[in-house]
């Protein structure tokens, strides 16, 4: 095929794809918009083709990134990644055709300086959702930066450029000490600097850098241009975001600094937990991170530096998969607080929590909303059910930082529970099975089966034996 020898250009055809506009030409290769010569039925989205630079003068780095993307993308699905369409033989005509993700890159959104708080939080939560989607499929992006985040019109974030990615089920061909392109250096986690490529929490560090950037307009660690500059990542303490932007709320500083912990163990352990905290700021447990006014002093920095040299983060021994840090949602019927199923549901929850080291427990009670009721009355009802939830969960002894309680007023409990579960990346719903012929509870009968049938996650149905 002549195509492999002559550089392709607009109008050329390769394996049934017609090349359109050349949208990027860089060190790593070229990117064209493409269309199918015979439009297929399954593909109803725009396409792009990536062609790596091959031959003389092109670094092996670019090809490796290309090969990595080719390996990882076909293993992934969902709205958070470009859909994989086709690939050429790497040994003969290397190319890859993927979905052209329509939307605006976070880089473009940041061009005007820091974002309004609400927008920054919204985008960060969307990126956290995307990371959760990625991590639960066994992949780690490892090159997260505003350039590589496309916000779709729907607000959903898609991650692009998987050239540095790692997938648990595919060989990782990158050398341990990969060089980082200058644009990526500000976002690289400390463990990546040390050559560890298997820790999903590295992406949460990068998310923290982006959230810092979105809310302050500054980069927490600057833009190091050298490897020595990158090594600072192991010990340099960033200026607290509120010191740069005093109007930022404490809970946001808490979330950002927790993402930026140099020790991965001290960060969030799951992207789903970050997304949850961003969407429920009132439930973020505040620590000394939230009120920090200054970065570490010079002597403190010396200590941090010394420690980082003596114990260079150790290895990441058992990097947790996202499923090791599940979000568990328990539907608690606080309308019937004396129901016989409550102890059984609580016991089931206790058993599940005992199995996991790192979890987030969400209790949700759906109460019949009466939209016409006066606001004061509704507040009272809300508070009453919140107190019942707190009472319900007390015997489990869950730490405040892992627990959140929600009372939802709704006339459609099934829909509300399902919506709440999918909006918060819930991994498992625990719900009581309907009891026998109890007419008063017939309302819940349809809820349990509706949730079980339509949930996007696992559902644990707790049944009490009837005497």
């Amino acid at each position: 095929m002549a195509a492999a020898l002559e550089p392709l250009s607009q109008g050329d055809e390769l394996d049934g794809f017609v090349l359109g506009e050349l949208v990027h030409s860089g060190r790593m290769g070229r990117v064209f918009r493409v269309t199918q010569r015979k439009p297929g039925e399954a593909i109803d989205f725009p396409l792009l083709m990536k062609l790596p630079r091959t031959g003389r003068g092109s670094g092996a780095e670019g090809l490796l990134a290309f090969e990595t993307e080719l390996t990882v993308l076909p293993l992934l699905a969902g709205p958070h990644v470009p859909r994989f369409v086709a690939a050429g033989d790497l040994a003969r005509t290397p190319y890859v055709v993927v979905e052209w993700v329509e939307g605006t890159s976070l880089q473009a959104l940041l061009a005007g300086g820091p974002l309004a708080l609400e927008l920054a939080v919204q985008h960060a939560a969307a990126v956290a959702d995307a990371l959760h989607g990625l991590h639960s499929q066994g992949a780690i992006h490892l090159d997260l930066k505003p350039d590589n985040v496309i916000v779709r019109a729907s607000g959903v974030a898609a991650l692009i450029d998987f050239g540095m990615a790692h997938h648990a089920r595919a060989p990782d061909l990158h050398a341990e000490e990969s060089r980082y392109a200058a644009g990526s250096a500000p976002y690289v986690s400390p463990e990546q600097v040390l050559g560890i490529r298997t820790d999903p929490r590295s992406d949460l560090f990068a998310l923290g850098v982006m959230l810092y950037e979105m809310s302050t307009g500054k980069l927490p660690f600057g833009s190091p241009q050298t490897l020595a500059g990158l090594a600072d990542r192991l010990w340099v303490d960033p200026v607290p975001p509120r010191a740069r932007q005093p109007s930022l709320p404490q809970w946001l500083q808490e979330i950002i600094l927790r993402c930026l912990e140099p020790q991965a163990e001290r960060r969030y352990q799951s992207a789903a937990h970050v997304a949850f905290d961003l969407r429920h700021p009132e439930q973020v447990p505040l620590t000394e991170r939230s009120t920090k006014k200054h970065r570490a002093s010079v002597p403190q920095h010396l200590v941090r530096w010394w420690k980082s040299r003596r114990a260079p983060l150790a290895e990441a021994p058992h990097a947790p998969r996202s499923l090791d840090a599940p979000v568990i949602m328990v539907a608690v019927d606080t309308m019937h607080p004396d129901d016989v199923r409550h102890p059984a549901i609580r016991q089931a929850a206790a058993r599940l929590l005992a199995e996991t080291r790192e979890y987030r427990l969400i209790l949700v009670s759906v109460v019949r909303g009466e939209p016409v009721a006066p606001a004061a009355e509704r507040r009272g009802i809300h508070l009453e059910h919140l107190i019942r939830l707190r009472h319900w969960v007390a015997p489990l002894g869950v730490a405040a930082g892992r627990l959140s309680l929600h009372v939802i007023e709704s006339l459609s409990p099934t829909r509300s529970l399902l919506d709440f579960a999918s909006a918060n990346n819930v991994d498992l719903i625990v719900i009581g099975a309907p009891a026998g012929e109890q007419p008063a509870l017939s309302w819940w009968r349809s809820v349990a089966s509706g949730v079980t049938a339509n949930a996007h996650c696992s559902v644990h149905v707790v049944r009490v034996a009837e005497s």
Partner: protein
Amino acid sequence: MVLALLSDVHANLEALEACLKHARESGATRFAFLGDLVGYGADAGAVVSVVMRHAQEGALVVKGNHDDAIARGAPYMNDAVRESIAWAREQLTPEQRDFLAALPLSRRDGRSIYVHASAANPQRWTYIDSPAAALRSMRAGEAVYTFGGHVHEQVLYAEVEAGAKEHRPVSASAINVASHRRWLALVGSVGQPRDGRPAAGYAIFDEPRARITFYRVPYDHDAAAAKIRNAGLSAALAYRVARGV
């Protein structure tokens, strides 16, 4: 052509039959046996006859150190293993012994090389236990794909700029192995896995699609272990098969 790669059967008929059935159901049309048909297990004769039948139908077979020990002995092996070799020698027919003795140390076929241990000096039975050892084997074999066994583990090595990178495959998950770089696949052990899981290990290579898939296949390992005990062989060997250690 979809090729099933089976190594270190070690006279375990139950495990071999389970893998062959699984491979055929997965679309395998060709078979390669990467050595150590005998030793440890209690079905030396039956296993060799299955493999001889496959060889007549075009299967590739190379010699392992246990197969070699049938004719030449193996002073380096421990007592229990030497005992199982001596026992196997008695169980095999002269024709089966000749078949083992005549096996080549390595076979080359298209872009692939098949060898029990390392393609660098196959007769020394070197263990591929590091990326460096893998790299030596890949380069010595001068093939795109090097397939082997001997270490009883499933590992895939890729040649990269800086040397070789190691990957621990997940069962039944296909891996792209594009032919622009060298790959070395250790396909695991059919008859005596050693990672604490008794399920039999093997791999399927789909050359046209440049994909390799490693599998772990559950089989009746208790039956295989009972046969070892009933044959009067070392209880330790039965225990290893039953526990996958």
